[in-house]
């Protein structure tokens, strides 16, 4: 579904991302982990054609994302608040996203009803603008809208951070369920190793813009990852 070829991103001479090759298949759940500055968000922005690659390309469904616009019809994404329209109410936002993707308002309403327990009262009662919601609720709106378009490719940056414990648990179940049911190609980045190993079947570790591990999740993955990042911490302390 997503092919990455010799993708590099440089900022004033410094290479922040360099990925020779990654293929992510349809129906694959792909987890991206790495410390701050490892290049996770940069990678996602490149896949969404939000920033210009210094070299190489990303193909989605066979189309170069920098050249065509068709991939936008089946890609749902939420990276940060820049994906929200802060002066709309949550319901207006869902309706707007629905309109852009040809989803009828009644379907939007049904979707929001189905998601009611995850979205919570603050969002469904539609009393305040998105800009006045808490960070956690803003995130829920963004993730919800990304899911609503029934995406073939779903890209979420740090979906678990800022969510309360119940919502984190609900989101994990939701993502696993949707991924099974709709065979989404799902890309998630996270600092929380627990969550990401639970949701994703494939984990890629980025360090300073390079892929240092690419593993299938198995019962030992979590402890392997923990060991890897613990050593990174020690290495920093020694420096």
């Amino acid at each position, binding site marked *: 579904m997503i092919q990455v070829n010799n993708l590099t991103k440089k900022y004033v001479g410094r290479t922040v991302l360099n990925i020779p090759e990654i293929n992510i298949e349809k129906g694959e759940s792909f987890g991206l982990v790495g410390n701050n500055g490892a290049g996770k968000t940069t990678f996602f922005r490149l896949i*969404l*054609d*939000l*920033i*210009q690659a210094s070299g190489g390309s990303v193909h989605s469904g066979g189309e170069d994302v920098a050249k065509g*616009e068709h991939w*936008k*019809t089946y*890609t749902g*994404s939420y*990276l*940060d*608040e*820049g*994906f*929200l*329209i*802060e*002066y*709309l*109410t949550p319901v*207006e936002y869902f*309706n*707007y*996203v629905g*309109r*852009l*993707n040809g989803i009828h*308002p009644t379907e939007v309403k049904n979707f929001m009803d189905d998601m009611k327990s995850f979205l919570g009262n603050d969002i469904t009662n539609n*009393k*305040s*603008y998105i800009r*006045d919601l808490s960070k956690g609720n803003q995130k829920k709106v963004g993730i919800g809208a990304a899911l609503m*378009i029934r995406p073939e490719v779903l890209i979420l940056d740090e979906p678990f951070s800022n969510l309360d414990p119940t919502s984190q648990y609900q989101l994990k179940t939701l993502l696993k369920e949707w991924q099974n049911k709709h065979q989404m190609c799902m890309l998630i980045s996270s600092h929380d190793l627990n969550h990401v190993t639970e949701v994703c079947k494939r984990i890629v570790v980025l360090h300073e813009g390079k892929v240092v591990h690419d593993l299938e999740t198995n019962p030992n993955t979590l402890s392997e990852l923990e060991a890897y990042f613990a050593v990174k911490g020690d290495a920093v302390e020694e420096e």
Partner: protein
Amino acid sequence: MNYQFTALQIKRIQRSSFWQKSLVTNIFIGLLMLLLLFELLAVGIFLPSILEKSAKDIAPEVLLNQGLIYYFLVTFMMRFFIQELPTMEVTPMLHLPIKKTKISSYLNFRTLLSFFNFLPLFLFLPFTIIYMGAHFSALSAISWFLSIYFFEFTSNFLLVRIKRKSSVTPSVVLILLSVAAVIGILNYYNLLPLKEISGWYFGNLIKQPLLILLPLFTMLLAYWENHRYTVNHLYLENLVKKKKRSEKISSSFSGLEKRGKTGAMILNEIRLLLRNKRSKQMLLFSLPLSLLYGMFFYPQKVYMDHIGLLVFVATFISGGFLIIYGQYILAWESTQFDFILASNIHTEEYFKAKYYLMTIPTTLLFLLTIPYVYYGRIILELNFVFLFYNLGINAPLLLFSASFNRKRLELDKGQMMNYQGVGINNFLIIIPLMGGPALIYVLLDTLVGKNIALLIILGLGILGILLHQQLIKWAAAFFRKRRYQIAEGYRNS
């Protein structure tokens, strides 16, 4: 402590990307300011002779004394629309061991740095030195000047106090305007003889400098009231205002939502304009301004004979909204630009929606200005021709120029005197938008005469409208080439 607050403020300004990135714009604005101050200073220096000439049998200082009250009233009104409250980020200070009275007095003293508080230095200080100093005792001259300053500061603190409580909403504007109207009417029928009161007070002040205690007292009172209010309201809940959702006007447009994707995008933009402070003020000023623009020119015979000038008016009268809104046609949405890029929005569809957003209000504005035909048929003809020019040439031009604007626009601040997000491009684009049509007309007029010139311009406009699909395509393609830079600029505020 005050020193540290000031140092923090200077850092905040220096390190804001607005300051660092737009040096050229800042120099340009600085030059404009300098020019303005220079002109004010010139007025101040020539004030004695201006006053002498305007009324032969009244002494200049008497005339000025009578007028001062109007000066205070007018500047108060202007302050109301233009002066912003200082926005020192207080929140990170609240938990630190700093006394609230300290923060409060700093916040209040900083309001004195407003542009308006410097005006008397330019307007009245020269008069004080040149005229008052020569005709009265030094004590009289000094107390005369100081009392003006005390009144000015009273006005400053009074305004700040009002603004801390309420912002510039249509209802507040209405109240203010009606108060001004009542004062005006009372004054006109001599029930409230402002002129005499002002003349009496300042006249006596010259004789008895002790009268300066009156403005001193009002100033201290206004300051004290501000201080009391801020100290009592230095809490997070008061600083971070959560506005109540008001859903009245934009829901009446909700039929748009059924008109497919373009309709949904237009509805969304209408909501943007109506729900953000900066865009609301833009509408509040640009619409009446462009409608009433004709009133300044049409009644005067001098202007009616200069068609080149009327062309200028005609461009602005239907194009006022187009020009003011269209300059930031993409930047209005800068905070959610990643959403637009990653969503299922085809660039051409996006630009088409933007085109309609500029052209529909422009046409409506033209319809509203038809009554100006009262001043002559030529007015209607010109406005009609230049409506087509605006729709066919200026609107597509703005779609192209949009791709040069890479500054994020913060929508939660007021519009007046706010240069955040404004680049040198925004000044430059005015030249072809407003000057272009006038220049074309003048050139054609000398070559082929008035009527043919207007026909050619009408033809150009119609051609632009017929080709608008193609022009939108080109503008979209141009945008696609520059989209990364634009998005990058919008992301980094």
